[in-house]
């Protein structure tokens, strides 16, 4: 089946969003967001794959060798960096929430505090 890798990416995304929707703990929710985002890595690398292709690094491969798409690999790198930094920022927010409100349950955070 030639669409299976794309479908797996969609499945990972939905699993991540399911975790976000049902999450009772913000740290767990940040993890779920990372799972949902990792679906984009699978999709990008799946789109870029070329049957029989090697890594697009020519230091010890002949320059006419068959390689996988380097553009989506660069995009996946960007994706990972942005994902990691956003995760760090969200976890910092969770640390502050825990200190100010004493809970990391998103349902218990409904009231506004002045």
């Amino acid at each position, binding site marked *: 089946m*030639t*669409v*299976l*890798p*794309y*479908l797996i990416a*969609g499945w990972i995304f*939905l699993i991540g*969003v*399911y975790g976000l*929707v*049902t999450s009772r703990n913000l740290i767990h929710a940040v993890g779920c967001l990372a799972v949902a985002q990792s679906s984009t890595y699978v999709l990008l690398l*799946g*789109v*870029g*794959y*070329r*049957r029989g292709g090697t*890594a*697009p*690094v*020519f*230091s*010890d491969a002949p*320059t006419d060798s068959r*390689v*996988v*798409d*380097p*553009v*989506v*690999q*660069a995009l996946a*790198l*960007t994706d*990972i*960096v*942005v994902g990691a*930094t*956003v995760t*760090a*920022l969200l*976890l*910092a*927010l969770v*640390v*502050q929430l825990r*200190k100010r409100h004493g809970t990391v349950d998103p*349902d218990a955070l409904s009231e506004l505090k002045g």
Partner: protein
Amino acid sequence: MSARGRLWLFLVAAAAFAMVFVTACFSLPPFGSGHHPYGERAVRAALSHHTANVIASVNFDLRALDTLGEETILFAAVLGTVVLLRQTADEQRRRPAPAVVRPRVRWFALAMLPLAMLVGLYVIAHGQISPGGGFQGGVVTATALHLLYLAADYRALERVRPVPLYEIGDAAGEAAYVVTGLGALLAGSAFLANVLPLGTFATLSSGGTVILLNAAVGIEVTSGIVVLLARFLDQAVEIENADDGNDHGNDGKERV
């Protein structure tokens, strides 16, 4: 909204998404096909700029402006974390107690530290000719430093890791990227254009500005990750509420 209602909303939305997504998947070029017009052009452009690692060429040459944006996101996220995790007025800093480390853990971490550091620097330096680069190597280098926390304790880590220095390094890495771009303007070309001599293909000095931009990113990522981890570790080990007693700030190790 109740948890049940939320779940139902998700199930409806997920079904709609799945339908559209599956339809789209069947219209994509089949997995593993040979048709990659942008990939082929990127490979040709990288080879013409003597950069053996095409991904480094895409990131630091063809899409150098996008990488500036990516780097700025990293910079902003580190800045945001520093602001969020600062010590507030109602908190105090507690000096972390020395910790006992099992000798085997200590020796393994001490043996791995220089090795991991060297691997990180190697990955940064060889970004233009082998898999890796500033982003990947920067994370390895920053992580290597934290092996000292495993080998000894937080105080030992703090002695070899002056955070203000790394904060400057973070800003300097970001600035070096912009300055390299402006240098291309001074040389009479476009912002971030590859204007330096391209060197011999697949050698350490090949790739022109890719080397400089790669190094700038390496410095920024190393410093940024160190600052980021320092803020989180400070929260876990040192900072505690003034009225909170001693149960906070446990660094997870046995006390002497």
